[in-house]
């Protein structure tokens, strides 16, 4: 929620615009500007402007400096990609985590213009949300979009089933998600533990997927509070411990470097720990991506996050070795 209120200066601006014949701040048809605003501007051009469910649409993102309009050409490669794009239906019935480089190396002209593009088939008519994550000058940024496809049902966007689930069976796998504390507390880090079996036997052949054993995309069911986190390795735990013991001794650059370097496989399964801080109470949708035997799989869960109150237990019983 933003602090919405009429502002004298804006009244003047609106009045002035009316006197001058109106201000048209619309983007071109099919072009959307990512939110929230900030030092970077991300435009999304959809082709066709209103994607048709079941047919390929092209998504073209252009990243520029907000002040100068100059294309951003030197994004940092984090988890093997420059721009991570997550696409979800508003009711979380579909999910995708995509990158231009999944299909082919980025052409030099796209890099020069700050352009990323790839096709996507929206599976059904409805409201979709796209979240883009990128890192520039050792700072990470998120821009998001919301739009409707052709044949989207009239009325408000459908909401997800709010019932939490800590197990899912899919593609012959049984995935369980446990949390510590048992109910995560808003604003306090929690450990999530994925446990994977196949036909009742522990899965022990996980391979790295984009430099991590597990990627997790997180949203509260109202679409707010997007997060993207990964398996929590002993090296990450060591860095966090060292940070806590020696405040002021670490930099964001060091953390980016850790996320950017070639990864080593730490968890073959069946158990993979993950850390996340849920910012506010509510029911959260999580999509966990991993690659048993090298084949990418997605497991959806819903987790209930409670509000902090004095005396509530926020301690983590960690499954990370040596944590």
């Amino acid at each position, binding site marked *: *929620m*933003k*602090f919405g*209120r009429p*502002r*004298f*200066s*804006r009244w*003047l*601006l609106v009045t002035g615009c009316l006197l001058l014949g109106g201000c048209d701040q619309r983007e071109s048809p099919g072009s959307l500007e990512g939110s*929230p*605003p*900030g*030092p970077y501007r991300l435009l999304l051009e959809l082709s066709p402007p209103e994607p048709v469910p079941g047919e390929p649409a092209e998504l073209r993102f252009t990243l520029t400096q907000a*002040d100068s309009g100059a294309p951003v050409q030197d994004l940092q490669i*984090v988890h093997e990609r420059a721009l991570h794009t997550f696409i979800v239906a508003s009711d979380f019935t579909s999910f995708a985590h995509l990158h231009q480089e999944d299909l082919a190396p980025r052409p030099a002209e796209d890099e020069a213009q700050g352009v990323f593009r790839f096709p996507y088939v929206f599976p059904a008519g409805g409201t979709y949300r796209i*979240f883009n*994550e990128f*890192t520039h000058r050792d*700072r*990470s*940024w*998120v821009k*998001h979009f919301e739009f409707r496809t052709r044949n989207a049902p009239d009325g408000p966007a459908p909401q997800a089933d709010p019932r939490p689930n800590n197990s899912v069976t899919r593609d012959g796998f049984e995935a369980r998600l446990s949390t510590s504390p048992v109910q995560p507390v808003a*604003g*306090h*880090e929690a450990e999530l533990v994925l446990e994977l079996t196949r036909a009742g036997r522990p899965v022990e052949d996980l391979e790295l997927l984009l430099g991590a054993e597990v990627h997790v995309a*997180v949203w509260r069911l*109202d*679409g*707010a*509070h*997007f*997060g*993207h*986190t990964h398996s929590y390795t002993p090296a*990450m735990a060591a860095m*966090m411990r060292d*940070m*806590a013991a020696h*405040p*002021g001794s*670490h*930099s*964001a*650059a060091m*953390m*980016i470097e850790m*996320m950017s370097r070639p990864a080593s496989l730490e968890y073959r399964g069946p158990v993979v720990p993950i*850390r*996340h*801080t849920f*910012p*506010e*109470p509510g029911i959260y949708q999580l999509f966990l991506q991993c690659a048993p035997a090298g084949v990418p799989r997605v497991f959806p869960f819903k987790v209930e996050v409670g*509000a*902090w*109150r*004095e005396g509530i237990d*926020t301690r983590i019983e960690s499954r990370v070795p040596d944590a």
Partner: protein
Amino acid sequence: MSARVVVWVLLFSLSGTARAGHGLINSFAGITWLPEAGLLPIDFGWRVDCWAEKFEVMQADSAELAVGLLHAHAMERLAEAILLVKQGQAGAAGPALEAYADLLAETMARIDELDEPDQTSAHLAFAARLLEARYIVSTEYPDLPRDQRKVLVPAMEAAQEAYQAQRAPLSRRNQESLFFREEEVRWSWEQGLAADAQGL
């Protein structure tokens, strides 16, 4: 969670994506940036705008609403000051920066008048907002004209003092929940000051 605590959460929730992340590298990835600067201190009507805002705060029918408005006004003053610095008119940013510091002080005073548990919730929420404000300014700072930007340093010091005042009464667990964001802000501000030291 009491209804009043819910109100605090809503009042201080600036963004749908703010503060998401695992605290490792992206505590501020989805942060809501400063609002657009409207009238500037050099413009006719700026003071009238400020008076209108004060009147709006006086009219607020709850402490929660008043605190939310005061914070919104503070962010607007910061946006005005940064725009003036970008325009090479740092000398004209003084009234906006003074107003920013005054608004922080007034917000703290209002929070101190609250009863528990609202006061703790407000301390925590306002501390988080102050970290965000410092992160925003520290991110902008290295790209601002180097002969102009130092005018922002006292405002950041005021924000840091206010942050410490909000953090101090919190429980150890709540203080710990702010730690990684504090570290990210510390690093970010050090980058800005390093740019000054190196003449960049």
